[in-house]
């Protein structure tokens, strides 16, 4: 088997909230170009793990190396600029702006106060916004207020807002929650397309969806990694079944 290059290396990562270890000595290695799905019962620490990677929560101990940069030392916006994009569990878009504006505001240029003041809407920006809008199936809605989109479309828009920044690592927290069957399929296709040249970490409950996209699956339970492997291996594992049923 070909040796893969590691993009994200998490070692011994722990965070405790008043003594409660929401993430407990987690080790996780994500390869370049890999789609990793993290599953686990509610409260397992999945969202907290993403919070730790993107700097929203500070770890108690451990290391988070992204392209050999220690992310624990960086501010949130520097982590983003290093190439880590993160979608929140509830769709987090700017409701008062149009789809176009949501994407343009996420365009990775003019990020300082003065830079944004003098930001020019050049042709490459317009082209890129349209390209992303086509990717996330929102070309028709480009000039609609984002607040008027359907729930599924909002999820896509947030993914688009990350894509326009071209992150090397994309982290999606329950991207298909609340979506129709058809939207789930479209999202799975979207994820396959966008993972062609980047790594993706997805948190998801829907097993059919997980099966469609995952290269490898990591199971979290009570803050710890219960097991890691292919979808088939995970679904057949006694401990995993117990963790889900016994909860």
């Amino acid at each position, binding site marked *: 088997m070909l040796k893969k290059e590691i993009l994200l290396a998490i070692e011994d990562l722990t965070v405790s909230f008043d003594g409660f270890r929401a993430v407990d000595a987690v080790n996780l290695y994500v390869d370049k170009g890999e789609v990793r799905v993290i599953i686990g019962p509610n409260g397992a620490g999945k969202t907290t793990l993403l919070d730790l990677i*993107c700097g*929203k929560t500070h770890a108690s101990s451990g290391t988070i190396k992204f392209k050999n940069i220690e992310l624990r030392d960086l*501010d*949130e*916006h520097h982590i*983003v*600029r290093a190439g880590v*994009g*993160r979608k*929140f569990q509830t769709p*987090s*878009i*700017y*409701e*008062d*702006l*149009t789809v176009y*504006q*949501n994407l*343009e*505001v*996420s365009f*990775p240029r*003019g*990020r*300082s*106060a*003065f830079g*944004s*003041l*003098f*930001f020019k809407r050049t042709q490459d920006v317009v082209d890129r916004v349209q390209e992303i809008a086509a990717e996330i199936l929102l070309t*028709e809605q*480009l*000039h*609609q207020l984002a607040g008027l989109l359907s729930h599924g479309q909002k999820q896509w828009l*947030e993914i688009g*807002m*990350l894509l326009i*920044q071209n992150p090397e690592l994309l982290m999606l927290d329950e991207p298909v929650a609340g979506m129709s069957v058809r939207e789930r399929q479209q999202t799975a296709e979207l994820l396959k397309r966008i993972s062609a040249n980047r790594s993706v970490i997805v948190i998801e409950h829907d097993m059919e969806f997980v099966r469609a996209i995952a290269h490898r699956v990591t199971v979290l339970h009570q803050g710890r990694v219960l097991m890691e492997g292919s979808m088939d291996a995970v679904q057949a594992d006694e401990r995993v079944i117990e963790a889900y049923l016994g909860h």
Partner: protein
Amino acid sequence: MPKKLLSHWITAKNRSDLINLALLALLLLVVLPLALDIFRLNLVGKYLTFAFVAVGLVLCWGYGGILSLGQGIFFGLGGYCMAMFLKLEASDPVSTAIQSTPGIPDFMDWNQIKALPWFWEPFHSFSFTLIAVLILPTLFAYLIGVAMFKRRVGGVYFAIITQAIALILTVLIVGQQGLTGGINGITDLKTLLGWDIRTNSARYILYYINAALLLGGIVFSRWLLSSKLGLLLVALRDKEERVRFSGYDVANLKIFTFCVAALFSAVGGAMFTLQVGFMSPSFVGIVPSIEMVIFTAVGGRLSLIGAVYGALLVNFGKSYFSETFADLWLYLMGALFIGVVLFLPNGLAGLFREPRQTWLLIKHTALMLVAKLRPARLRPEGK
């Protein structure tokens, strides 16, 4: 289809914005100067200096979601810088010959101060004063912004801290009577580089400078809001985390906007001093700072132009009602604020979206001003 509708709506909105701006310019530059005698016009000029603060609040509060209840700080700092220059000019050794120490401001002499304090010295220079008006309050806003926003202090906590700073500054000014003129402020200002600012012609000129600066400020703000920074402010108010996790240093964006609002307030303060002829702590503290937020809320916190009407109307109401029912005014003001917040979240601008409606508003404002304002009230605050 909806796309077409929307783009149509956007250009229509732009057009009506421009017409509203033109109507405001017409009101300020033509209608009011023609309709009002110079005493009333001077009063309107005073109200318009508060409009600078209100326009700044539209940017930082309306769009950026940063509620400052301390804009009087910057209004006051700008006003005091200008007042210090004018006071020094009014305190030349000849006209202060009867003082025990001639050549220093009269209030210093009354407080047994024997020499001009060091920080007054540079205000002998007009260019220094102009730069100080622009830089000092903005720098102070920057320091407050860094201290607060970098630590992610926001919302109500930020509002309360700005209140506290406004209070502290007032107490400092009032307490250091010999250095600042104390509770009376800096009064008896006479000339600007030898030009008597108390004459009618000076008042007309200052009124026009003030109005032009205000209109310029509105045009600048419109440009700012139409830039990516403007979009970011709207985004920030809605989903701050999303902005932060899109690679922006949110604190810097807020600091910048807060500084712009402070700069506007400072210009307003300096123009106040020039037109009204004095500056005092009663324009620095908690009450004036809150009043300025009320002007913005009444005008519509998302409307740059509405902010000007808000400042005009509330101040007009204040001068009318505080003469007629002096004790009731504070309650009325409170009721007005609550009423607007509850029933008119977008203020007057929410009612007067169409230029035609704005025109009616202008007509009525002008008529009311002509009919109700009493002349010859140079310093209605008393002190």
